[in-house]
C-alpha cells in the first residue's frame, strides 16, 4: 500500500538536512558569469538579518554600524594604497628612464632632474647639465662629446632598453601571466559579471607594478594609465577579501571595483572627477548612485595620497600640468575641427591595424614567441628612437614640452623664435614672433617622430607586458597639434593682412598659442581611439587647469568621435573584447533587428530536445546520467514530460553538490531514490527507497518570455537585469532556452561577424 514516504522516518531528519547550508554554494567557477539577481537578493537578506539583530543588544548595534561603515573604510584603504603605488611607480619610472642615458654620481637613486636640483652650475641654455650627472660615455671612457661617445651612448641606451624589456616579459611569464596587456578590456568584462580567477590577485598586483616600471622605462611606446586602473582594481579586490560583506558577494565586490577603477584613473592623470566619469562611462556596467559618491571619495583619497608623496617635486600630480590662460579665438575653431578629424581618422586606423596585428598574433606562429617579440620590438623602438631627440626622451616629457607655451624663459629648440631685442613685455604676453632655424629643424624632427609613433604603437599595444594606450595616443595628437599650431602661428605672423587674420590678430599681439593646439590634438586622438566623450573633456581640463579651453576640447572630441564612428562603432577596448570573445553585452550597442525569441532559442529544429528534469519522477541515477552526458549550466524543471509546464530552474553546480551531500550524509538515499522538487514528497510504494527533496536548490522564479517576444526586448532584459539565461514558453509550456551566449552569437550574426568567436559562457 502507498504510504507517504516522508512519514516513515519522521520529518526530523529532513528538516535538519534542509537547515544546514550547502557548502560552497554560491561560489562561481572560473570563466563563468555571475547571477546578478541572486547576489543582490543575498545581500538584501544579509542586510535585513543584520538590521533585525541590531535591535537586540548594544554589541549587535555596533556590529550593524561597522557593517554600514565598512564600505567607506574599504574606499579609504583603496585610495591610500592606489596613491602609494602610483607614487612609487612615478618615482621609479623617472629614475629608470634616466638610467638609460647616465647615472648620478653623488647619489645613484636620483634621476637627472633631481641630481641637478641643488647644483649652481646650470646655465640658461643647458639647464639640465650639471657635473654630478654624467652620461655613460663620460663615466666609462671619460669622453663627454664626440663620435665615439655618441656611439657608446647609443649602444648602452639600446642595451639597457633591451634589458628592461627582457626582465619585464620574463617576470610576467614566470610569475603572473595575467599581468600583461592593458587590463581595461578584461576589467570591463569582469565588472559586467564575468569571473576571471587570479586576474585581480596579489601576485598579479605585485608583478604588474614592478613590470610596469620596467616596461615604461625601456622606452617602448606605451603608457601606464591603463595598467594603473588594473593595479587599482587589484588593490580593491585585495581589500575586499578582508570584509565578508564584499568577499562573499560578487555583486557588492563589483561596486568596490568600479570605485577602485575611478581611483586608478585619478592617480594616473591627477584628475579625480575625470576618474569617476571614466569609471562611469568606460569601465563600469552598473553604476548606482551610491557607487558615484564612493568612487569620488576613493579618487580624492588616492589623489591626496599621491600629492603628499609628491613625486614631481612641485606639488603637482601629473607631469604635464600647464598654467597659461591665453585666450583663443573663434576663427581657431577651424584648425581645431581639423585636428578632430585627424584624431578620428587616426583612431580608426589604429584600431583596425592593431586588431589585425593582434589577430595575427593570436592565430599564427607569431604568438609562440612572446619573449622574442618583445625583444625585437624594443630593439626597433630603441634603435629608431635614439637619434631623434623628441623620441629619445620619455613620452610624458615630450607631451609636457609640446603642451608648454614658449615664453621668454624657454630655450629649447622648439622655442627658438627670433626675439626682438628691444622687447619690454613681461614674461607671459610675448607677441607672435617669426620662427628661427631651430623651430624649422624641430618641425621636421617632429614629423618623423609622428610617423614613427603612429607605426610603432600599433605593434606595441597588446604585447605580453603591461602596456597602456593613453600616453602614446596623446603624444601622437600633441605632435600633430603642435605642428598645426606652429603653422597657423607663422601664417598669422607673416600674412597678418589676410582676411581671416585681420580681424582677430593684429601685429604685436599674442594670437596663437601652439601649446593649446597640442592639447586639442591630444584630446582628439585619445577620443578617436577610446571613444570617450565627457570623461575625456573633464580629464583634459583637469590636466591643464584651464576652464576657458573647454569649448575647443569639446569641439575636437565631438568631431573625432563622429569621424571615427563613421568608420566603425567600436572603441579599442570593445574591439579587444570582441577579439577575445568575452561574453560582454555592451550597453551601448543598439539592437534594431526584428527577430523574435523563437529564432534564437535552443534547441533548434535539428538539435536534440531540451534536457529537463521532472518534478518528481526522476531517480538520482537518471539525474547523474543527465549531468554526465551534458555540459549545460542548468536545467529547467517541468511538471512532467507530457505536460511540460514549467516549475523552475536548477543550476548544475547546486545539483551536483546536493546529490553528493545527500549520498554522503543522508541515510537511505541510493541511486534509485526519487528526486522531487515539490513541497510534499510524491506517493511512493512502501518498498521504495528514501526520496530526496531538492526544493531548496530550485529557483522558483526563473525569467520567462513567450516565443513571440521581440529579440529587442529580450536583449534589453538581459542587459538591464544581468541574466544568464531566459526560458521561452508558449501557452505556459516550456519551448526552449536562450542563454547569454546565444544572445551574443545572434547579435554577432546580425552584425555579420563570426558567431563562433564568442567563446565563453
Amino acid at each position, binding site marked *: 500500500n502507498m504510504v507517504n514516504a516522508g512519514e516513515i522516518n519522521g520529518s526530523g531528519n529532513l528538516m535538519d538536512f534542509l537547515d544546514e547550508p550547502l557548502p560552497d554554494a554560491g561560489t562561481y567557477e572560473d570563466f563563468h558569469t555571475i547571477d546578478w539577481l541572486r547576489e543582490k537578493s543575498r545581500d538584501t537578506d544579509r542586510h535585513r538579518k543584520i538590521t533585525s539583530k541590531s535591535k537586540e543588544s548594544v554589541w549587535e548595534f555596533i556590529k550593524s554600524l561597522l557593517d554600514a561603515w565598512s564600505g567607506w573604510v574599504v574606499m579609504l584603504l583603496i585610495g591610500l594604497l592606489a596613491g602609494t603605488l602610483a607614487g612609487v611607480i612615478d618615482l621609479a619610472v623617472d629614475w629608470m628612464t634616466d638610467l638609460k642615458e647616465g647615472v648620478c654620481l653623488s647619489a645613484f637613486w636620483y634621476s637627472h632632474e633631481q641630481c641637478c636640483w*641643488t647644483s649652481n652650475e646650470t646655465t640658461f641654455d643647458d639647464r639640465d647639465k650639471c657635473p654630478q650627472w654624467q652620461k655613460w660615455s663620460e663615466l666609462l671612457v671619460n669622453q663627454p662629446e664626440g663620435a665615439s661617445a655618441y656611439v657608446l651612448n647609443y649602444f648602452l641606451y639600446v642595451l639597457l632598453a633591451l634589458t628592461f624589456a627582457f626582465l619585464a616579459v620574463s617576470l610576467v611569464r614566470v610569475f603572473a*601571466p595575467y599581468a600583461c596587456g592593458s587590463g581595461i578590456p578584461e576589467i570591463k568584462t569582469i565588472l559586467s559579471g564575468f569571473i576571471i580567477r587570479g586576474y585581480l590577485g596579489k601576485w598579479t598586483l605585485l608583478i604588474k607594478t614592478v613590470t610596469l*616600471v620596467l616596461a615604461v622605462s625601456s622606452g617602448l611606446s606605451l603608457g601606464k594609465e591603463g595598467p594603473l586602473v588594473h593595479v587599482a582594481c587589484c588593490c580593491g579586490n585585495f581589500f575586499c577579501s578582508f570584509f565578508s560583506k564584499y568577499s562573499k558577494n560578487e555583486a557588492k565586490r563589483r561596486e568596490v571595483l568600479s570605485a577602485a577603477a575611478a581611483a586608478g584613473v585619478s592617480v594616473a592623470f591627477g584628475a579625480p572627477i575625470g576618474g569617476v566619469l571614466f569609471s562611469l562611462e568606460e569601465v563600469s556596467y552598473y553604476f548606482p548612485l551610491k557607487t558615484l559618491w564612493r568612487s569620488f571619495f576613493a579618487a580624492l583619497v588616492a589623489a591626496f595620497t599621491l600629492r603628499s608623496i609628491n613625486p614631481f617635486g612641485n606639488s603637482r600630480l601629473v607631469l604635464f600640468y600647464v598654467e597659461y590662460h591665453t585666450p583663443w579665438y573663434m576663427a581657431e575653431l577651424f584648425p581645431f575641427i581639423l585636428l578632430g578629424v585627424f584624431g578620428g581618422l587616426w583612431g580608426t586606423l589604429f584600431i583596425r591595424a592593431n586588431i589585425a596585428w593582434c589577430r595575427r598574433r593570436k592565430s599564427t606562429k607569431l604568438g609562440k614567441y612572446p619573449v622574442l617579440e618583445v625583444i625585437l620590438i624594443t630593439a626597433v623602438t630603441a634603435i629608431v628612437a635614439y637619434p631623434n631627440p623628441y623620441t629619445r626622451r620619455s613620452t610624458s616629457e615630450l607631451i609636457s614640452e609640446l603642451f608648454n607655451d614658449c615664453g621668454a624663459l624657454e630655450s629649447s629648440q622648439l622655442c627658438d623664435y627670433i626675439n626682438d631685442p628691444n622687447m619690454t613685455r613681461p614674461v607671459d604676453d610675448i607677441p607672435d614672433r617669426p620662427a628661427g632655424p631651430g623651430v624649422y629643424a624641430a618641425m621636421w624632427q617632429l614629423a618623423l617622430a609622428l610617423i614613427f609613433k603612429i607605426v610603432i604603437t600599433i605593434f606595441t599595444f597588446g604585447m605580453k607586458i603591461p602596456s597602456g594606450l593613453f600616453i602614446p595616443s596623446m603624444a601622437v595628437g600633441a605632435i600633430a597639434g603642435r605642428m598645426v599650431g606652429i603653422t597657423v602661428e607663422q601664417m598669422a605672423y607673416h600674412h597678418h593682412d589676410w582676411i581671416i587674420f585681420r580681424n582677430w590678430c593684429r601685429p604685436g599681439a599674442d594670437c596663437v598659442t601652439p601649446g593649446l593646439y597640442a592639447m586639442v590634438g591630444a584630446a582628439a586622438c585619445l577620443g578617436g581611439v577610446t571613444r570617450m566623450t565627457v570623461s575625456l573633456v573633464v580629464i583634459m581640463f583637469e590636466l591643464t587647469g584651464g576652464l576657458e579651453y573647454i569649448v575647443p576640447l569639446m569641439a575636437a572630441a565631438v568631431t573625432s568621435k563622429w569621424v571615427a564612428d563613421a568608420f566603425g562603432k567600436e572603441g579599442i577596448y570593445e574591439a579587444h573584447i570582441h577579439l577575445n570573445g568575452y561574453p560582454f553585452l555592451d550597453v551601448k550597442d543598439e539592437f534594431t533587428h526584428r527577430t523574435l525569441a523563437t529564432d534564437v532559442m535552443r534547441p533548434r529544429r535539428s538539435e536534440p530536445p531540451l534536457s529537463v528534469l521532472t518534478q518528481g519522477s526522476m531517480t538520482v541515477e537518471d539525474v547523474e546520467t543527465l549531468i554526465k552526458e551534458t555540459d549545460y549550466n542548468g536545467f529547467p524543471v517541468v511538471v512532467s514530460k507530457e505536460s511540460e509546464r514549467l516549475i523552475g530552474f536548477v543550476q548544475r553546480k547546486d545539483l551536483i553538490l546536493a546529490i553528493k551531500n545527500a549520498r554522503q550524509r543522508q541515510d537511505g538515499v541510493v541511486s534509485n531514490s526519487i528526486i522531487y522538487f515539490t513541497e510534499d514528497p510524491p506517493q511512493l510504494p512502501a518498498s521504495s527507497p528514501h526520496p530526496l527533496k531538492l526544493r531548496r536548490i530550485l529557483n522558483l522564479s526563473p525569467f520567462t518570455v513567450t516565443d513571440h517576444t521581440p529579440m529587442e526586448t529580450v536583449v534589453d532584459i538581459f542587459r538591464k537585469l544581468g541574466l544568464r539565461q531566459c526560458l521561452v514558453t508558449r501557452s505556459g509550456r516550456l519551448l526552449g532556452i536562450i542563454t547569454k551566449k546565444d544572445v551574443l552569437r545572434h547579435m554577432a550574426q546580425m552584425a555579420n561577424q563570426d558567431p563562433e568567436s564568442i567563446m565563453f559562457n
Partner: protein
Amino acid sequence: LWFDALGLLVFFQLVFVLSFSTLLLNVSDAKNSEDIRCKCICPPYREHAGHIYNKNVSQKDCDCLHVVEPMPVPGRDVEAYCLRCECKYEERSSATIKVTIIIYLSILGLLLIYMVYLTLLEPFVKRRLFGHSQLIQNDDEVGDHQPFANAHEVLAQARSRANVLNKVEYAQQRWKRQVQEQRKSVFDHHVVLS
C-alpha cells in the same frame, strides 16, 4: 564577522604605519635644508645672457631681489631686469625618493633571484631529491620545459605528509599550478589577453 574585525585591525595598523612614516619623513625633511630651493630664471636682457639662479631660501624670501646674486645689471635697471625673471619656490623630499628607489630595487632583486631559482635551480634540486623515476612529464605537455611543469606530481606527494613545512610546500605547489594554468590560457592557447 571576525573577518570584519580582522579588516578593521588591518585598517588601523595601516593608518598607524602610514601616519608614523609620513611624520618621520616630514621630520627628517625639515632637517634637510637641501630639499627646498628658490629657482629664478632670468631671460637674456640687452647684452647679458640668460641665467638661472638657485638658492636655499624659504618661501617668503623667494623673489628676484633675494635670490639673484650678484645682480648683473646696475641699480636703475634692476627693476626692469627683475620684471622679466620668474621665481618659483620648489620643494622635494629626498628621503622619499631614496627610500622608494631602494625598496623598489630590493623587491625587483628578490623577484629576479626567485625567478632564477625557479627556472634554473629548482628542477635540478627536485631531481636530486625525488630521483629520476618520479619526474614524469604531464600527458598533454610533452616536452614542456616551463617552470612548474611537474607541479601535479609534487602536489600529490606533498598531500600525503602533514607538517608545517609541507603545508608551505603544498601552498606553493598550488600557486604554481594556478600560474601554469594562467600561462597556458594566455601564452599557449591565446584564450585570454591576446
